[in-house]
């Protein structure tokens, strides 16, 4: 068996030797053109003139295009057709592409782009949450509201109440490989595009629209990305479309790569949020009523903002059973970069809201926040084995996947076009809210049947020595005036599946060659998470051969069509199952053939240890493949998988959007300097649930990396826009991501080793996004350290930069 083994990434020797190819490393044919965008110098206005004469006169310039020069669709939006490739005469954020230059070199294109003059009749930009609210500048007609129980009555009746608000910053992806695309024109107007994208099908679709061909004339290939993190789900569209259009017009190969500053100024980031809360609770700390209002700053275009904001609502409960809750979500349109997918997809923001509430209640009651958290947990699942098959789901697969789709952009998470309702609030709660199926339901009516955080918390409390360390921290703080320590525990419950149910499907293509080597292709993309390795392990174990016999080739829309983005942590769940289905077909055909040849039963043919055994015979797998070929057995198959049991109505906010939940918990200890606000993570203990891990080494890498990236989001990574809407933090010199020295000094990471109760590939669980939210414990620990400075509520914002910590210390001191 090749599954459940800690094997390194598949391309390891290539990576360490520098021979693993990214888009910018692909040798280009002679005469390749390079592109650069000319960008809007202001955040909002009407373009009055664009003077490009100087651009055309620059050395090496071959062509300059504005919107009017585009032969077909001027649209790179993954959702609402509201994102032109080049400005349509109005500009909506500072950095918006207005024209594109094609030149003989990358540098020539960049220099020429700077020579253009764009005159804009400026208008006052809408930049902040308050400005957007005042102008009623938003996506969807009004706020989306989901309700469970009667939060108003419960608030009224609660013995204690508090209110508060938390600001949560956005996050730049800072994939180390910037956005890049290369278009190679083919005969008859066809186009091949190499793109650094998590979503080749979306690139194919947008490129086809941009060059006026059906999708079958465009083939997109993605070998790998140098990091994605959600930033390459829709943000690669502009580069691929620009390259394809210029390639189509000139007949030349065309490449585009954003320089780092351009990348940070042009592309969308994680949504920043403000979350207001009003809470009713009892003297033990049990929450009796919660009323959240989430304000998401979505930027200028819709992109994936609606499902991101939905997922923030879907995780407003995190691990806690809330019987009376209202979640109101405002999706605000601002003159900033169009915020987009980022690891967790709104989930982290939603979780920060409820974790802040837990801390606030515990602080007021003078209790250990960890105890308040546990008190509010969902009920623990029944003992393992009682319902191990995931039988809670109805067999019904959602029947009408395309019902509401009118955009034609079916493969994007932004695809659902929900009709904008009348202005003002639309409430789906009250009389319309789903009937709870029992006591253990989420705010959206899904029963939580696989909750294991009670046991996981118990284990982590023990292994991390939480209670003793909490006491030690308090004692240490008594004796230290300038430095203060803090410690915090936080859990994660993250829903796994695309919330747009029809995206939960995948395909694979497997060939067995007559020498026994195996070629595998699937719809997922490799961005460092080790997806190819996991899927190859599945294939190797189905055929009972060593892993080296399986080659995974670049993701290619010509091999596996209609793929979903490699996103929502779904990569191995979906593609692993699809690959398994393809392998099993070939294996069954081989078994039937060999059983006939050797007088055995097909069901008795064994594939194991590189051999095939049948009717007392044993032969190498290669020999078996050769025999099957000679007996005219097809050794190629496609596999297909769709996640069962999903049904979700995002308008009502009711149903079963998730196949299962992935769990994790963390304890973090920090120290702050009360004179400067500087701080360090001293120790982190993580316990995370990957079901039966397909590859513990890769999963632990995801958990460690996710935690550090999550902690980075909430501590050092600060995005700053000035009052003209210019992003001031547009390079690593001003935007601080974690470095080697920011890793916790003591870092203990463990897997919770228990099979997934739902029927996933080898009972594993998705691990891409969930561990990101373990980083919330670092932010809570900083808040705890600030709270040690005085009796006041520190009201720490996120990110907790040194400046923010210092301000919180002052508030605590009162």
């Amino acid at each position, binding site marked *: 068996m090749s599954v459940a083994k800690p094997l390194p*990434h598949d391309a390891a020797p290539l*990576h360490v030797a520098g021979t693993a190819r990214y888009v910018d490393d692909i*040798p280009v044919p002679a005469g390749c053109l390079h592109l650069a965008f000319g960008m809007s110098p202001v955040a909002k206005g009407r373009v009055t003139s664009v003077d490009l004469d100087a651009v055309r006169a620059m050395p090496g310039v071959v062509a300059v295009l504005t919107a009017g020069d585009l032969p077909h669709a001027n649209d790179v939006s993954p959702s609402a057709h509201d994102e032109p490739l080049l400005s349509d005469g109005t500009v909506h954020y500072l950095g918006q592409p207005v024209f594109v230059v094609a030149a003989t070199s990358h540098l020539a294109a960049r220099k020429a782009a700077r020579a253009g003059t764009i005159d804009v009749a400026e208008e006052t930009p809408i930049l902040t949450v308050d400005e957007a609210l005042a102008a009623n500048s938003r996506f969807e007609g009004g706020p989306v509201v989901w309700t469970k129980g009667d939060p108003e009555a419960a608030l009224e009746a609660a013995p204690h109440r508090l209110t508060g608000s938390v600001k949560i910053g956005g996050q730049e992806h800072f994939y180390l490989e910037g956005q890049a695309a290369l278009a190679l024109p083919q005969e008859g107007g066809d186009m091949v595009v190499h793109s650094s994208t998590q979503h080749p099908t979306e690139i194919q679709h947008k490129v086809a629209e941009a060059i006026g061909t059906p999708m079958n004339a465009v083939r997109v290939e993605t070998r790998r990305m140098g990091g994605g993190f959600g930033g390459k789900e829709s943000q690669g569209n502009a580069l691929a479309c620009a390259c394809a259009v210029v390639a189509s017009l000139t007949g030349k190969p065309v490449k585009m790569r954003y320089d780092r500053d351009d990348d940070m100024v042009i592309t969308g980031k994680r949504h920043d949020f403000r979350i207001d809360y009003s809470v009713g609770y009892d003297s033990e700390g049990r929450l009796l009523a919660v009323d959240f209002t989430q304000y998401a700053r979505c930027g200028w275009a819709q992109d994936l903002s609606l499902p991101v904001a939905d997922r923030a609502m879907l995780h407003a409960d995190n691990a806690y059973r809330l019987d009376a809750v209202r979640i109101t979500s405002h999706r605000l349109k601002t003159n900033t970069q169009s915020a987009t997918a980022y690891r967790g997809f709104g989930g982290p923001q939603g979780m920060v809201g409820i974790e802040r509430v837990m801390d606030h209640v515990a602080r007021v009651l003078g209790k250990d926040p960890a105890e308040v958290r546990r008190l509010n947990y969902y009920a623990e699942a029944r003992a393992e084995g009682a319902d191990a098959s995931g039988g809670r789901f109805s067999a019904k697969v959602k029947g009408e996947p395309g019902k509401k789709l009118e955009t034609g952009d079916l493969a994007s998470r932004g695809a659902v076009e929900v009709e904008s309702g009348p202005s003002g609030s639309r409430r789906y709660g009250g009389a319309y809210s789903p009937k709870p199926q029992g006591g253990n339901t989420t705010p959206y009516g899904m029963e939580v049947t696989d909750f294991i955080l009670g046991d996981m918390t118990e284990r982590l409390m023990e292994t991390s020595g939480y209670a003793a360390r909490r006491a030690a921290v308090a004692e240490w703080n008594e004796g230290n005036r300038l430095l203060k320590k803090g410690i915090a525990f936080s859990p994660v419950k993250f829903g796994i599946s695309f919330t747009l149910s029809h995206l939960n499907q995948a395909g694979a293509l497997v060939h067995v060659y007559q020498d026994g080597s195996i070629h595998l292709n699937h719809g997922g993309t490799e961005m460092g998470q080790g997806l190819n390795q996991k899927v190859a392990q599945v294939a190797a174990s189905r055929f009972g051969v060593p892993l080296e016999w399986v080659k995974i080739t670049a993701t290619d829309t010509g091999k596996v069509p209609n793929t979903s983005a490699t996103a929502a942590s779904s990569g191995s769940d979906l593609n692993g199952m699809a690959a398994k289905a393809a392998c099993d077909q070939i294996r069954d055909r081989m078994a039937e053939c060999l059983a006939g040849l050797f007088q055995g039963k097909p069901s008795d043919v064994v594939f194991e240890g590189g051999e095939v055994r049948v009717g007392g015979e044993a032969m190498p797998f290669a020999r078996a493949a050769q025999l099957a070929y000679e007996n005219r057995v097809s050794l190629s198959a496609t596999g297909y998988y769709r996640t069962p049991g999903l049904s979700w109505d995002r308008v009502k906010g009711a149903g079963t959007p998730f196949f299962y939940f992935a769990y994790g918990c963390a304890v973090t200890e920090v120290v702050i300097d009360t004179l400067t606000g500087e701080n360090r993570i001293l120790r982190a203990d993580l316990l995370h649930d990957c079901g039966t891990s397909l590859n513990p080494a890769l999963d632990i890498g995801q958990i460690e990396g996710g935690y550090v990236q999550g902690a980075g989001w909430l501590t050092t990574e600060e995005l700053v826009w000035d009052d003209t809407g210019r992003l001031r933090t547009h390079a690593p010199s001003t935007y601080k991501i974690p470095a080697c020295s920011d890793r916790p000094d003591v870092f203990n990471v463990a897997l919770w080793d228990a099979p997934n109760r739902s029927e996933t590939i080898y009972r594993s669980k998705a691990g891409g996004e969930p561990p990101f939210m373990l980083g919330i414990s670092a932010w809570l620990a900083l808040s705890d350290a600030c709270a040690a400075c005085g009796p006041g509520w520190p009201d720490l914002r996120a990110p907790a930069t040194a400046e923010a910590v210092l301000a919180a210390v002052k508030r605590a001191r009162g």
Partner: protein
Amino acid sequence: MKTTLTVNGRSHQVEHDARRTLLDTIRDDLGLPGTKKGCDHGQCGACTILLNGERVNSCLCLTAMHDGDDITTIEGIGSPDRLSALQKAFVEKDGYQCGYCTPGQIMSATAMLREVSEGAPSYVSGDLDGAALTDAEMAERMSGNLCRCSAYPLIREAILMASEAET
């Protein structure tokens, strides 16, 4: 302009614009794409090379200033079938995720291990005569090479493994 460089033991004469960086020369003129462009600002370390044996960010070096200099890139450290001890350690420990920063990490660590063995102090060394490669020393000495996947724990394990193999 014309500049002569020795890269991975081979002499090259390149013709270039006065403002061309060594990074662009290496990637685009010499066709050695193993050296990566992450930020082009000297902040991320993905473009680290050895310049006359010292580690530098090649995006901050002007080609014109390095006539006659000796350069080693990741391609000069080892090939997939002939890996250096450090490269092998990165494979063994799976010291990366997306791999984009990996060539820079390996170039930087190659020089860093030599600096430690030669007794060069770092910002956190207690003694100007250098220090042993503790966890704190490694974190400080490798802090110029960013990894957005945050594979730092395994990167550090890989470097430690290679340093122990050497001594």
